[in-house]
Every structure is written in C-alpha cells, then in structure tokens.
C-alpha cells in the first residue's frame, strides 16, 4: 500500500517536472525570438548592385562627424534610428577629396496656414545651396565619418530632411566631393531626374544636378 503510494507520488513529481520544463522552454524560445527581433517584413525584393562611386567626377555627401575611431563612428551610427530605412554609412574621411560645401537655406521650422486657415508650425522641405569650390570644411586626416552619398542635389536634400526628422537635428555637413576609395556608402538611393525610378548610375552631366 505504502509502496504504491510512493510510486504514484514519484510519477506525479516527474509529470509536474516535465510539464514545467516544457512551459519554461516555450517561454524561453518566445523571449529569445522577441529579443532578437524576428525580421519585421516577409519576403523582400531583389537586391540592387552596390556602386561605390570611386572614379565618378563628383558626388554629394551628407556627413556627420568626424570621429576619432571607427568604433566611435559605428557606435554613433547605431544610436541614430531611421526606422526600417537605411541611415548613415561609416567610412574613413581620407577617402574623400572635398571640393566645396553646401549651406542649408531653408528654416527647420516655419509657420503656415493650412487648407482650413489654421496657423501651424511645420518642418518645411530642405533646400541646400552650393557655396562654391574651395568654400567650407575639410576633414582632419585619419578620422572617420558617418555619411550617405548622392549624385544629385535633390537626393541630398531629401536625405537631410529624413535625417532631420529621424535625429531631431539638422547639424550635418553637406559637401561636394570625389570618392578616392573605400566601401559602398549609399549611392543609388535617390530618384532619377527623369522620374522613371531610382538613379542607378552616373548621369552624363552629373555636375549640373549638384548646383
């Protein structure tokens, strides 16, 4: 009688232990999935070919920095969130020969009346103006920068607007440069001036779209 009772108790303990292990494992799996962040989207489209822009006569870069080391630059890039979209890339400042700089000629906040006549404070579109060759900043040799590169002024202006909304700051360097080497830094993410789709390669008269 006592022996049967002991066996039954052992079985109960084993059953409860197994049940607890199963529940704990399920919770752990869910927690890990949640922490690692499963890919938000489902299937994605085709990948575009990354073009570095080395060899093109001139590009525009929207840059932040400089930073003393690559680690510092990557940590700064990781702190800036653009939601699903690609933000800044990281590269050596030495990979850029700077021709001149752009000034932001639009305000960050303006007042306007909406369709119903109400006064509202808005963040207007960004407008940049080229200040000329030889005017503006250059980078300290050996430093690192956050940047995204464009072939047209419109592409740079759109990115500055996104970066302003995403970071709450419009403190960026916008420079006309030649890329001397280094990795892919975002070329191709701007509309083609003819409105057909993205600008996947250099334009015949690229400089005229930069001023």
């Amino acid at each position, binding site marked *: 009688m006592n022996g049967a009772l002991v066996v039954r108790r052992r079985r109960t303990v084993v059953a409860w232990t197994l049940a607890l292990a199963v529940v704990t494992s399920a919770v752990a799996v869910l927690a890990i*999935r*949640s922490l690692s*962040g*499963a*890919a*938000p*989207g*489902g*299937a*994605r*489209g*085709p*990948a*575009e*070919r*990354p073009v570095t822009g080395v060899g093109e006569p001139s590009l525009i870069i929207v840059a932040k920095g400089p930073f003393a080391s690559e680690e510092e630059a990557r940590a700064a890039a990781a702190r800036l*969130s*653009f*939601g*699903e*979209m*690609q*933000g800044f890339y990281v590269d050596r400042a030495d990979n850029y020969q700077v021709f001149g700089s752009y000034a932001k000629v639009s305000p960050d*906040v303006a007042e306007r009346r*909406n*369709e*119903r006549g109400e006064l*509202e*404070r*808005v*963040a*207007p*579109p960004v407008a940049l103006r080229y200040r000329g060759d030889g005017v503006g900043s250059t980078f300290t040799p050996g430093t690192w920068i956050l940047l995204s590169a464009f072939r047209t002024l419109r*592409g740079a202006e*759109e*990115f500055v*607007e*996104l970066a302003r*909304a*995403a970071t*709450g700051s419009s403190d960026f360097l916008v420079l006309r440069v030649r890329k001397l080497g280094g990795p892919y830094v975002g070329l*191709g*993410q*701007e*509309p*083609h001036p003819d*409105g*057909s*789709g*993205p*600008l996947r390669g250099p334009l015949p008269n690229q400089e005229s779209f930069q001023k």
Partner: protein
Amino acid sequence: MLGNVRFGRRWAWLVGLAALVIGLPAVAAWAGHWAANGWKDMHYNYPPRPDGYSGIVSVFGQPCNSNASAITMYWPAADDGISYRVVFHKKLGGAPVSGWSTGKGGLSTNLDNDVRGHIGNAHLDPYVLGGIWGYYCRYIQGTTTWSTHAWGIAIDQNARYEHYGHCHIHTMHPTVIQIFKDHRWVQLRCDPMHFQYATGY
C-alpha cells in the same frame, strides 16, 4: 420643511435636465468636430493592396518614380507641436473632397482624407508623436533592397519612441492602428511604427 425638500429636489431635477439638454449636443459636437466641420470618410478609389515585390511594382510602378512622391500632407506631432511633411504615392490620396479639400492631384482619398480624418475625428491626435514620415528613396537598413517607403506606400509614426526590430508596442494607440488596418494598411509585427499598403514584403 418637507415642502422645501421636495422643492429642492424638483430644482435639482430641472437643473440636471437642462444640463443634459444643453450639454449633450455640445459634447456630441466636440466629439466629432472634424465631421461637424465638413469632413467625411470617402473611401474613394482605393488601389488594390499588392502582395510581394512584383505586385507592388505592378500597382505602384518602380521605386522612387515620380508618382511615389507626388502628394504631400502635413501631420502634427503631439510631442513637439510641429507638423511633419508626409510625402506619398499619387494612388493613395490627394483626391478632392467636396466641402473639405480641393485636392492635390491625387487619385484616391485613402491616406490624407480617410485615415488622417478618422484619427483627427476620433481625437487621437495626442497619440501621434514625432518621427513621422512617408516617402523616402531608401533601402531597408543593412541591405540594398528597397523599403516600401521608396514607393511612397509606407508611413512611420512615433518613430522616436518605437523601435525597429522590437516586437512590442510602446506608444502607438490601438485605435490608430485599427484605423490604418480598416483602410487596407498593414502594421508589421516587429516594426510597430511602420504601416504599409502592401503584404508579403
């Protein structure tokens, strides 16, 4: 003494009734003032919601094409009081609405009139926070694959407070989410700030 009490009760009833008669229409007007000012949900000419990359290209064209950034609206953020520019595809808004909007050359009433109007009409503007944007010709982070933002068919809200890749919500109001869903928009499970007019992508 008893008479005074009865008289007082009658007065209390009368005052209560008067408050109801005057107050109810005022509350109703306050509760739906967008509608009272002429806004109406039109549900006009919504495009089909595409599935996957080829479906998106078939309905909305190439990423970053000129229609993707054809319509602009300003959406106020409650946290800083600034209205942010939301640019989006011509097929998702910008059509005129009689007595409300003269239109912006768009083909439907989806985003700027219907979704935006429902959120305003339901007094949910205090829950729409900074980090608001629509079209940008950008890839998905860490890839060279187009984001749905590049077609002007995605909008992010509350991006300052929500986190890409986190599968939980911090600040998005459930009714705001439902309003987007009721108008064919999809919220991604692990990107709670992001609504897109497409599935399978």
